[in-house]
């Protein structure tokens, strides 16, 4: 048992895409999360910080955004601004996902 793991290691080659939602405060700390605990917390934290930076830059450019959706090839990130913080939804995109507009 575990022979292959001993040979190739147990780390998966591809990280699973995060699915669920997180709430971050204005400092970027995660206050609540429904994303699987198997997903690396530091990556989630980094995503939260980048989303806050995106919203902050929009405010600096005099076009504050209430909501923003970033459509990647395999993931959609939707964020709603919450008094300096944000609630962030992460939706992995699969072949069966509805086409977003």
């Amino acid at each position, binding site marked *: 048992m575990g022979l292959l793991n001993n040979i190739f290691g147990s780390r998966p080659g591809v990280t699973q895409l995060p699915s669920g939602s997180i709430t971050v405060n204005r400092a970027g700390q995660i206050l609540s999360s429904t994303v699987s605990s198997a997903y690396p917390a530091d990556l989630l934290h980094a995503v939260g910080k980048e989303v806050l930076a995106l919203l902050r830059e929009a405010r600096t*450019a005099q076009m504050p*955004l209430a909501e923003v959706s970033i459509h990647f090839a395999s*993931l959609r990130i939707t964020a709603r601004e919450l008094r300096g913080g944000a609630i962030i939804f992460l939706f992995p995109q699969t072949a069966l996902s509805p086409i977003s507009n």
Partner: protein
Amino acid sequence: MENQHKILVLDDDADWLELSREMLTQLPSKPEIRTATSGKRALAMLDGEPFRLLICDLKMPRIDGLQVLAIVRRRFPELRTVVLSALEDEDFRSRAYALGVDMFWLKTEMQGNLQMYLECLESLLGRDQDGGFRGIQSKSLMDIIQMECLTRSSSVLRITRGSLVARLWIQGGELTDAEAEGARGEAAFRRILTWKSGTFENLPAEPNRKRTIVKPVNALLLESAQAIDESGGGPEASDQTVQIHRRTVWKLSLLTRTGAEFVVAVPPEGQGVHEAMGTQAQTAEQYATWTRRATEIIKRMGDLVDAGPLLHLDGNNSERQLLLIPRENKNFLVGWSPEASEGLLEKTKKLVASWDS
């Protein structure tokens, strides 16, 4: 020396006039410098012989500089005017610009930046054949009207071209009425847009003025631009000018047809300047900066979670909806009104695809 320009310097301080004369002799075009110590004397000199440029002080006994400028603007619309004053008051600066002066310099600033001051004067002297409107030399009347409407301002724009006077009534960013050469409404507006030079000033708004124009200003501008385009842009227009004009008309028509509020096309950092349509220059600059920063942030985020390349970004607030579409050599930020209907992504993709076609 028929091409030698004449400059008239008006100031009640004789010592300053002498100093000015010495400074102005350094101008490369070697203009003839004349001086006057009172507004009355200056007006008499302007009546008697043609001058290219008037450099005017503001604080003077009897007729002050603003009064002189108001008279000059009416009687000598082709004369370039520069205010050179010691009055460090923003109110005077805005009043002078409202009168259509080409430049406003503080004496203290001028002494510290003499070279720049002289370059500015030389540039004004060299603008014999240029079109454009006083105070906003490089802008066409279309640009000026667009700026007024984009800022959602309410004012009456009075445009003077020689003996011709026209007025445009703008209320809350909408063009409501126009009057020129005995015509009113859209016909007057089309006539005004054929003017290539002149002076303009902002007068207080007249909210009770009866509305005669109901078409959106962008549609009217587009129609007029197409009419000018079809007429060949005038005999003096060079091929390059015609090309630029056609491209602008095409993009403006694209914007109007699709119903988008604005488009900002942003090349990567260091690979050229952004191009914007439908928004003011300063706002466009801010949007372009955000587009660059947002693209960097999104790329970092995509790399972090292995999410693949960015397809697009959409965002909204109570005032507008935004779409950021990445392309190989440019990123496009397109603004839509909050009421814009579904299918926005497809419309935006089509607009972006046709932008440089």
